[in-house]
């Protein structure tokens, strides 16, 4: 589709004039077309070559003159006056093996003659020509660039003054002023603030992914009583500075970074994954970046180019390069692997779907295929050392190892090394993978992945000796090289497109172009992600697509204000989070109001807080917190989430097998880490309920909850129900709830007493605790 992009329309216009001159007579020509030619085209061609059919095979439309004159991918379809030179005529004649139309059958000679005659007469078209439409302009980069020149997301972020709100409480903070104005536009009114219990539970989950303890709730309620609003600010500070903050925000970023502990494929002979034993150092880097409030622009630069901006082997920041290195690449040809890097960089950081421009100019966005190959050149100029190569991957500080663990590791390592040495260069059968290599890639890799006494390296990328000067691959085919393009940034964001220097990949320049206040997308895309996480609804509901095809923001001015405020406060993520959670908008109750819902049923304008479902990570972590079993150790190697030996650490430290994604994660909408992921969705399917009903993990936590001293020491049914409600829902039960549960317990106790094998069965109270974990109240945040 790479035709003269900027002049394409002009050329067609000119040709239209010349063609009109060629036709016998306009009126006669139109009549001939409508009577003889159109019916033929309708019957035999329009299925694939008309706008009505929503098809344009080979880029060719035959329902308008500009269609056949402009032609398809191959060439002009019709040369007026010259049937023999017209591809359309060649195709219907069926003599050329490579060009036969219609594909299924040959037209009768009579029809072919009719078409020849039509072309000879100058190929007249309909009286009212459709001309160029949105549809015929698919992939027309000239048109798309023009459209993009007015597109909101490609305009620089402006500093905007918030409008005054006619409500005292809503006139204090910019976010509220913007929201209030839009509410008024739609005859909506905001909700009352949520009560203290609801608010502290919501805030604790939103900032840490964990539930508040019953004590923290009581403390907060008391504080609010004594200190008022200040108590809330204190709570925000306490939570935002807890290590759990980085774990929660970090998990959001890991979705974008399509993080996993293995590659996308497995080794067929041993049926084992390609392990990434050191991927965890990237995960830890991300968690710490959020905890230390690393400026987001610096965070971006380090992830793309830590090795080029002053860090070197031995620096903790080198782990940032995992953003590139942990991507899927096994069993992909090199172009495929580069595609992942282009995709995560453009879509993940800027909400641009540049990866679509690999085989042709983007059909819907101002991204010529040349831009794709400019970025391709940047990424083709770096190499990724083998993920198991301990010599090439730098060691990384900050992971002290217990000496007993170290000794155990060394012993196991020695045994494997001995096996490797013994294998020498043996192979088995026709398998080209030597026995020694097989042991390294399976047993040794597994040991490195899970053993907490093992060495720690960062997963990195390196500059290639000589940077690659890219060519366009015509139609994405590496064997079909088109024009050479320089390594440089995207045209739509950098019209001058200064080539990157000759002596490096250009990652620094790329990183600087992205992590810049001059880039209209980077800050907007990120603030939108954080806003969506905290508010349960994004301002732009296509968080990784801010292009022409993406959704428009519901609050464009607010989005700009947030982006501007974020950048002018040093790209501080904690600042951004504070802005949002301190707002009245965030603090609203989630109560339903019929009148408001009749105007805005989806709550696009935030007339109430959104009720949010817990992620699978939060469900798992919460059950451990409530059972008082959460191991809050930060950092370190991945560990299994389920099974006999499940970890009691937070779910972000769980092992993620990219190739065979854990089924429980999958049923709970954990996004497949094959590509960068825009965010989480909420689906409601029975297997999620089966998890809370039957998963040994949940059953285990229910038992642990009833073994807690504060529960076991209570003897009366009422006290026990109260304790469980405090632990799990952080509230008092109602009388009806106490009665209903007491009845259940007594009923089960009778059943229990009559049972021969009672020791095998869960106690009635364990079932009650589990029932609370199964409930909606546990899984939703008001």
């Amino acid at each position, binding site marked *: 589709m790479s035709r003269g992009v900027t002049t394409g329309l002009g050329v067609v216009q000119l040709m239209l004039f010349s063609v009109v001159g060629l036709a016998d007579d306009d009126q006669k020509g139109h009549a001939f077309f409508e009577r003889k030619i159109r019916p033929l085209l309708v019957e035999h061609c329009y299925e694939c070559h008309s706008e009505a059919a929503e098809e344009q095979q080979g880029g060719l439309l035959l329902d308008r003159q500009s269609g056949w004159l402009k032609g398809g991918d191959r060439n002009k379809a019709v040369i007026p006056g010259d049937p023999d030179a017209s591809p359309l005529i060649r195709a219907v004649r069926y003599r050329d093996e490579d060009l036969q139309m219609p594909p299924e059958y040959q037209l009768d000679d009579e029809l072919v003659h009719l078409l020849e005659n039509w072309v000879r007469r100058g190929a007249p078209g309909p009286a009212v020509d459709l001309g160029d439409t949105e549809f015929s302009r698919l992939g027309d980069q000239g048109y798309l660039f023009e459209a993009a020149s007015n597109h909101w997301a490609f305009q620089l972020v402006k500093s905007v003054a918030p409008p005054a709100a006619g409500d005292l409480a809503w006139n204090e903070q910019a976010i509220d002023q913007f929201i209030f104005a839009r509410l008024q536009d739609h005859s909506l009114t905001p909700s009352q603030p949520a009560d203290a219990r609801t608010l502290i539970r919501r805030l604790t989950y939103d900032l840490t992914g964990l539930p508040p303890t019953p004590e923290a709730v009581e403390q907060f309620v008391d504080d609010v009583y004594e200190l008022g609003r200040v108590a809330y600010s204190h709570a925000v500070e306490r939570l935002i500075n807890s290590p759990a903050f980085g774990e929660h925000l970090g998990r959001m970023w890991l979705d974008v970074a399509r993080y996993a502990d293995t590659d996308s494929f497995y080794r067929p002979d041993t049926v084992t994954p390609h392990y990434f034993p050191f991927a965890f150092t990237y995960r830890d880097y991300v968690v710490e970046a959020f905890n230390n409030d690393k400026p987001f622009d610096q965070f971006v630069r380090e992830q793309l180019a830590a090795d080029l901006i002053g860090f070197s082997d031995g620096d903790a920041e080198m782990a940032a390069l995992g953003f590139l290195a942990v991507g899927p690449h096994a069993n992909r040809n090199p172009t495929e692997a580069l595609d992942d890097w282009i995709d995560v960089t453009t879509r993940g950081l800027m909400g641009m779907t540049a990866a679509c421009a690999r085989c042709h100019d983007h059909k819907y966005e101002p991204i010529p295929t040349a831009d794709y190959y400019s970025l391709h050149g940047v990424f083709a100029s770096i190499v990724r050392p083998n993920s198991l190569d301990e010599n090439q991957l730098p060691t990384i500080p900050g992971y002290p190892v217990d000496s007993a663990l170290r000794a155990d590791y060394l012993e196991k390592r020695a045994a494997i090394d001995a096996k490797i040495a013994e294998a020498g260069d043996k192979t088995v059968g026709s398998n080209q993978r030597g026995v020694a290599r097989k042991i390294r890639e399976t047993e040794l890799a597994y040991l490195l992945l899970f053993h907490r006494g093992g060495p720690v390296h960062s997963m990195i990328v390196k500059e290639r000796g000589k940077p690659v000067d890219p060519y366009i691959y015509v139609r994405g085919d590496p064997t079909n090289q088109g024009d050479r393009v320089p390594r440089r940034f995207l045209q739509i964001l950098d019209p001058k497109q200064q080539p990157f220097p000759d002596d490096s990949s250009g990652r620094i320049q790329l990183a600087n172009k992205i992590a810049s206040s001059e880039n209209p997308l980077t800050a907007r895309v990120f603030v939108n992600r954080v806003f969506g996480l905290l508010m349960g609804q994004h301002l732009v509901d296509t968080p990784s697509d801010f292009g022409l095809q993406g959704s428009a923001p519901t609050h464009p001015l607010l989005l700009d204000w947030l982006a501007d405020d974020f950048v002018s406060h040093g790209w501080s993520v904690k600042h951004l989070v504070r802005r949002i959670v301190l707002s009245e908008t965030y603090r609203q109750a989630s109560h339903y109001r019929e009148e408001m819902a009749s105007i805005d049923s989806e709550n696009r304008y935030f007339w109430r807080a959104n009720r949010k479902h817990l992620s699978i990570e939060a469900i798992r972590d919460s059950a451990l917190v409530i059972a008082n079993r959460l191991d809050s150790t930060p950092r370190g190697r991945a560990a299994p989430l389920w099974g006999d030996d499940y970890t009691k650490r937070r779910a972000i430290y769980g092992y993620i097998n990219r190739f065979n994604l854990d089924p429980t994660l999958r049923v709970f909408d954990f996004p497949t880490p094959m590509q960068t992921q825009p965010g989480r969705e909420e689906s409601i399917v029975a297997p999620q309920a089966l998890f809370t009903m039957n*998963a040994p993990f949940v059953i285990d936590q229910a038992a642990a909850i009833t073994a807690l001293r504060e529960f076991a020491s209570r003897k009366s049914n009422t006290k026990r129900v109260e304790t469980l409600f405090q632990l799990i829902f952080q509230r008092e039960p109602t009388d009806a709830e106490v009665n209903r549960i007491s009845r259940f317990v007594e009923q089960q106790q009778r059943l229990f007493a009559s049972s021969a094998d009672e020791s095998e069965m869960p106690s009635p109270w364990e079932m009650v605790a589990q029932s609370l974990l199964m409930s909606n109240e546990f899984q939703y945040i008001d």
Partner: protein
Amino acid sequence: MNETGLPMHVSRRQLLQNTGMSLGTMALGSLLAKSNELSAAPRPATKGPLDARQPHFPPRIKRVIHLFMNGGPSQIDTFDPKPELSKLDGQPLPDSVKNRLQTTQRNRVGNIFASPFKFRKHGESGLEISELFPNVARHADDLCVVRSMVGEIANHTPGLLLTNCGHSALARPSIGSWLLYGLGAESDNLPGFVVLCPSGMPTAQSRNWTSAFLPGVFQGTYIETENRSKELIPNLTRDDIRPRSQRAQVALTRFLNQQHQANRPGDERLESRIHSMELAFRMQSAATDVFDLNQEPAHIREMYGDTIQGRNMLIARRMAERGVRYVQIYHGGKQPWDNHGSIIPNIKRLTSECDQPIAALLTDLKQRGLLDDTLVIWGGEMGRTSTTQTGPKDPNKMGRDHHIDGYSIWLAGGGFKGGFTYGSTDEFGLAALENPVELHDLHATILHQMGFDHRHLTYRYSGRDFRLTDVHGNVLHDLLS
């Protein structure tokens, strides 16, 4: 939008969050009372991702059973007779023919290796089938054999991915996932897309049934071996509790949920979750029940045979009649039909394992009136060469190499012509001659029979609308009755 007014390019958000349902859910008691019955309770009017939806036009078939002979069965020993080849047996291929082979095959091609198996005409149609499939041959008049399948890359992983997902390399949703996305699930109690494979996963593993960028609920559910009903769905049951106790526990949870919901009107998700827990409870027994072959009369079990293949085919039928839309059965783990060596004894063993069960499945579907709206597909990810690979001279040790330029599959039921062959290969049983069929064409045709225009079953992802057939695919109307 299509004729039915149903947008098929539903956004993920719409799809997952559009759970508008009424409060008219059945009382829990009556649901539980029915929990041991086969039939699903009437469902409320939800619009969750798995709720049944209407396709573009009235479908001809309701379900697909895909018998996947993974590894690549030899066409010239089964459904594509080349009697003339026996005259050339043992001779080298003419160079002109050799040059038409895929590079990987050309380098190690041996001499012509005519099929040692006899073909005979069967049924009224006179369809030719080799002696390896004596029982399947009795259904000759039901089979629509395509002898001109053409693949893209002559190896297992690309072949499997192309056959299942429409692309040899990239991560794309499998056809079963697309169908589930388009149609929703027919059954409340069972997954809509199930993959059975005895003894380990086939090559390429879960990529064969991946939902890729479609929501994870549309992914195929893989079951490793026979009678492993617990793996049908993770956490399907627990052993340490009596059903009666769990029923009481689910009822208690419902009470708590109702208390919670009473103060939170206007949130349909809460009702949907209450409903989904009841489904989950029912699913426990339904999903266990589908594997309980003792419920089948003895003569049915005998007809299928008490073997791995026999039991799997019978489970497939039980799933099909309970509303599983797409059942895929692999012959076994990895790639059992990959007969590079000793093809004679191996293919005898493989066909003797599956011939009777496949015939039984066809008979059984037919006698239940299910063959009409069920499509049965038989085939592999490719075929095999009509030459040996360079190597042993002993015919019993000789094998055949991968082959993608013209291989055979068959389809039965579901509106496909019976006793019909389509396409042909050249005199060496290698290149497709007449009517070459791409996998995209097959996909377009299956979708067509399920009620979809393959060009309009799309999903917006990463900036563009994706579809199973990408920019390819023609519905093979010639195959349809």
